[in-house]
């Protein structure tokens, strides 16, 4: 069944790439792997009849946010080795706090899977209900966005303005002093 095959392929890519993101020493590689993961997620969105979200995912995340990350890594020319000079262990294999972190992440997975097992409608097909043409059309997304969610939409504009001012203030060199 091609649908299931594609789903497994892209979710596999997304998961493996994300896992590698946190296993890399070099932030540059992490960023490239994360872009791969975003691409795979965008394919999953297309399977979920959300082409507009899929494209926005690539344009906003991969095309803008990740370029920003890349820009900062290049600008700082950051040392790729995190941790102290004497600490040559792989970042995920350091003792101490890492064990706690692994424990907590493992707990989280167990908890989420447990919650999912108890869910009643988890086994219903995801695209069983609704009109595909209406859900995947940009027109209907826009209509709902600018009617039901117009307040939230306007609020995000203020959020972006604040973020912009904040970023400029934080990153600008203190020339006055």
């Amino acid at each position, binding site marked *: 069944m091609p649908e299931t095959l594609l789903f497994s392929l892209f979710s596999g890519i997304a998961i493996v790439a*994300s896992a590698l*993101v946190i296993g890399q020493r070099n*932030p540059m590689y992490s960023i490239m792997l994360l872009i791969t993961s975003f691409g795979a997620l965008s394919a999953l969105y297309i399977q979920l009849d959300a082409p507009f979200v899929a494209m926005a995912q690539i344009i906003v995340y991969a095309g803008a946010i990740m370029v920003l*990350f890349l820009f900062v890594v290049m600008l700082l020319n950051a040392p790729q080795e995190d941790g102290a000079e004497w600490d040559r262990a792989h970042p995920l294999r350091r003792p101490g706090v890492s064990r706690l972190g692994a424990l907590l992440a493992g707990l989280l997975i167990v908890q989420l899977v447990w919650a999912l097992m108890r869910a009643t409608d988890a086994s219903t097909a995801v695209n069983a209900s609704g009109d595909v043409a209406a859900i995947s059309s940009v027109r209907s997304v826009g209509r*709902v966005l600018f009617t039901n969610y117009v307040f939230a939409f306007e609020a995000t504009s203020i959020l972006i303005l604040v973020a912009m001012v904040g970023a400029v203030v934080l990153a600008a060199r203190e020339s006055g002093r």
Partner: protein
Amino acid sequence: MIPLGHYLIVSAILFAIGTAGVFLRKNLITILLSIEIMLNAVNLTFVAFGRAQGNVDGQIITFFVMTVAAAEAAVGLAIVIGLFRHRESLNPDAFTSLKW
């Protein structure tokens, strides 16, 4: 037909990976990247639930999450640049003193 549960499991695994990254890594850039993974996992849940409900609200919330992610990345990276100027390091352990 792919059941809704499969999407939720993928999303849960991604979220756990993101959480693990925040806990385990000692590099501010990687920690920010892990937060992006978590936000994306949540996005996938929203879109999957929206599709299962048969409406577009899930997609719309995804746009808001993306906006927040963009704002977060901009401010977060500005903070990283500021910190790096002071300490020449990206290790969060280097920023333990409150005042310098």
